[in-house]
C-alpha cells in the first residue's frame, strides 16, 4: 500500500480552478520533490493535503495509508501522521513555544489513544530536538514565531516536525527567505528525520534546497498537474533550462 495516493485531483478555491487532475504516489522511505513555476498550484496542493477550509475538491481523491482523508479535519489528519511545514509560519502571540509544542504533541497522542507524555519526558525530548537545531531554551519560552527571523521560524517548523514524528511531511517552500547557513540547518534537521517509515514531499521553486535534501523522485507541477516525473537529475535540468517548456503545456 502506498503512503499517499493522490488520484486525478481537481481543486478550486473561490470558484477558481487551481489543480487540474493531479496524480501523485508517494511511498514511505522516499523523498519526493515537487518543483514548478509560480501559480502552478504548489501551495494549493500542500493546503489541500493538510485540510485547509475553502479549498474544494471537485473531483478525485486523496488516500493516506489507504484512507480517504478528504472529509477529515486538519487535526485528524495530523494525528494520523501528516505534517505540513508552512511556507509562512504564523505568529501566535501569548502562547509560549513550549506550551504550543506540548499541547500539539499530547493532542495527537490523545487522538491516537496513546498516553500523554509526562512533563519530564516531554522536556527531555524538547531539549534534545531543540539542541540539535540550535534553538535555545530562551526561544522556547517566547511566544510562537513572534519576533522570530525567517530562519528561526523555519527551524521552529522543523522542531515541531521532530517532536510530532509524522509519517508524511510536506515542506512547503521551506527554503524561501533563507540564506545558505539557515538553509543548511533546516536541511540537516530534515535529513536527520529521514527514515524507512517516513516520506517527505519537498515543494520548492529553486533547485538549491535539493543539493542538501537530495530527492529520490522529482516532479514538475505546471498549471495544476504533474507534467513530468524523473530522478534527481531532473532538478538540475530545470535549473539549467527553467520552467518555460512546461508553462506552455496544455492541461
Amino acid at each position, binding site marked *: 500500500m502506498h503512503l499517499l495516493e493522490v488520484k486525478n485531483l481537481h481543486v478550486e478555491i473561490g470558484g477558481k480552478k487551481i489543480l487540474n487532475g493531479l496524480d501523485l504516489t508517494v511511498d514511505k522511505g522516499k523523498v519526493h520533490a515537487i518543483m514548478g513555476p509560480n501559480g502552478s498550484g504548489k501551495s494549493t496542493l500542500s493546503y489541500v493535503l*493538510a*485540510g*485547509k*477550509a475553502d479549498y474544494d475538491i471537485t473531483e478525485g481523491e486523496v488516500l493516506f495509508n489507504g484512507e480517504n482523508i478528504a472529509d477529515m*479535519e*486538519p*487535526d485528524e*489528519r*495530523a*494525528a494520523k501522521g501528516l505534517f*505540513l511545514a*508552512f511556507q509562512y*509560519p*504564523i505568529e*501566535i*502571540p*501569548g*502562547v509560549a513555544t513550549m506550551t*504550543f509544542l506540548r*499541547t*500539539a*504533541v499530547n*493532542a*495527537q497522542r490523545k*487522538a491516537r489513544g496513546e498516553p500523554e507524555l509526562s512533563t519530564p519526558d516531554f522536556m527531555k525530548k524538547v531539549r534534545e530536538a531543540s539542541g540539535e537545531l540550535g534553538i535555545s531554551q530562551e526561544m522556547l519560552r517566547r*511566544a510562537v514565531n513572534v519576533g522570530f527571523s525567517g530562519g528561526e521560524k523555519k527551524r521552529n517548523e522543523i522542531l*515541531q516536525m521532530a517532536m*510530532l514524528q509524522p509519517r508524511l511531511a510536506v515542506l512547503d517552500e521551506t527554503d524561501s527567505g533563507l540564506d545558505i547557513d539557515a538553509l543548511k540547518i533546516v536541511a540537516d534537521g530534515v535529513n536527520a528525520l529521514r527514515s524507512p517509515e517516513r516520506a517527505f514531499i519537498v515543494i520548492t521553486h529553486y533547485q538549491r534546497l535539493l543539493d542538501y535534501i537530495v530527492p529520490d523522485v522529482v516532479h514538475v507541477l505546471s498549471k495544476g498537474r504533474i507534467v513530468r516525473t524523473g530522478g534527481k537529475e531532473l532538478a538540475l535540468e530545470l535549473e539549467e533550462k527553467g520552467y518555460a517548456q512546461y508553462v506552455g503545456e496544455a492541461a
Partner: protein
Amino acid sequence: MAELKVIKTAAEEGLAEAFAGARAHLPGAASVKSLRENAFRTFELKGLPHRRVEEWKYTDLRALMRDAKPLAPLPDAAAKLKAKSASAFASAAKARRIVIVDGVFAADLSDVAGLEPGLSIGSLAEALSQGEADVVERLGRRAPLADDPAFALNTAMMSDGAVILAADGVKVERPIHLVFVTTSIKPVSVFTRSLVSVGKGSSLSIIESHESADGIDNQANHAIDVAIADDGRLDHVKIGREGDRALHVASLVAEIGKNAHFNDFTFTAGGAVTRNQIAMSLNGSDTHAAVRGASLLKARQHADNTLVMDHAVGHCESRELFKAVLDDESRSVFQGKIIVQPHAQKTDAKMATHALLLSEDAEADAKPELEIFADDVVCGHGATAGALDDDLLFYLKARGIPQKEAEALMVEAFIGEAVEAVENEVVREALMDLARAWLKARG
C-alpha cells in the same frame, strides 16, 4: 412657574421609599446626613440613567431595573456561615481576608488581628457612628463622580464598607482581600462604600471579589474611594463573579499625588449586568496609572467598563487596556475618556480595547474619547473587535490541536496579554485559572 412633576419608574419610586425609610438609621451624624440628603436629591433630579445620558448610553439602567429590591437584612448566623467559605480565589496569595457579607463589614469573619504597624482596617459604619473626622471629611470631598446618578445614589444609601488606611512610609507586603458576598436567597440590594488611603511612600495591594448565587437578581451598588499620596503605590485587582442574574454597579474614584503608582485590574465573568466605572485624577507629576481589565461573557451577560482618566498635571503616564471575550449573545462595552488639562504637558496616555467575538450574536461597543487641551503630549487610542483568526486556527489544527482546544488556546493567549500586567504572580495564575475554567465550561 408650574411645578415640574417628574414621572418616576417603579424602581425610582422604590429607591425613594428605601431612602425615606432608611435615612434615619443609616450611620453618620449631621454632616453625613446632609451629605446623604444632597446626594439623594442629585440622584432624584437625574433619575436612573438611561440611553440618552451619554455616559450610560450602552447600559440603560432605567430600563434594566424593573424595581428596587429591598435592602439586605443584617446577616444572621446562617448568612455568616455561608460567607465564611466564600471565595477561595487566589488562596495561595495568603491574603488578609476582610469579609463584607450582605453589605455588612463582618469583623468576626475577618482577619483583623496582627495588623502591620501603620495599617488600619475597620468598618465604615463604625467609623461614621463614632464620627471619625477623617472619614467624614473624606466623604464630604467632591469626588470625580459626584454628579453621576449611581455614585450619588451610593453616597445617599451607603450603609457600610471597609476603611483601609496605610500611614506614611508603610509598605504592606501582604495583600488584603475584600470578600464581598451576598448570601440572601431572596433578591436584595446592597450599598457599600469603602475608603482606601495610601500614605506618602506607602504601598498596598488589594484584591476585591464579589460573589452571590445564581438565579437571584440582587442589586449591588458599590463604591471605592482611593487616595494615593505622593510616592505611594496601590495594586488593586477586582473579580466580579456574582450569580447569573445579578446587577452590579460599581464606582471607583481615585485622587493620586505625584510620583505614585496605581495598577488597577478588573476581571468580570459573573453577573447579568455589570457596570464598572472608574474615574481617576492624576494630580501630581511623574505618576503612572494603569487601568486594565478582562471580561469573559456568555449567554446574555452585559459588562460595561467606563473610565475617565484625568491628567490634571503634566508628566504623567497612563495606560488602559481592556479585553473582552464574548460568546453567545453577550455584550461588552468599553468607554474610555482621557482628559489632558491645559498645561498638562508631556502627558503620555495610551488606551486600547480589544474584543474577541466567538459567536455571530455577540456585540462589542467601544467608545474612546480624548479631550486634549495641552499641545506637547502623546496620546493614542485603539479599538478592535473581531473573530478568531482563521489562518491561526488552521495552523493550530494542522498541528493536531482540535477546534475547541485551539479556540481555547487562542482565547487564553488573548486574555493573557491583559492579565500579565497584574503584579502578583499568584493572582495572575488564579485569574488565568478562572479563564481556563470558563473555557472548559464552553465545552
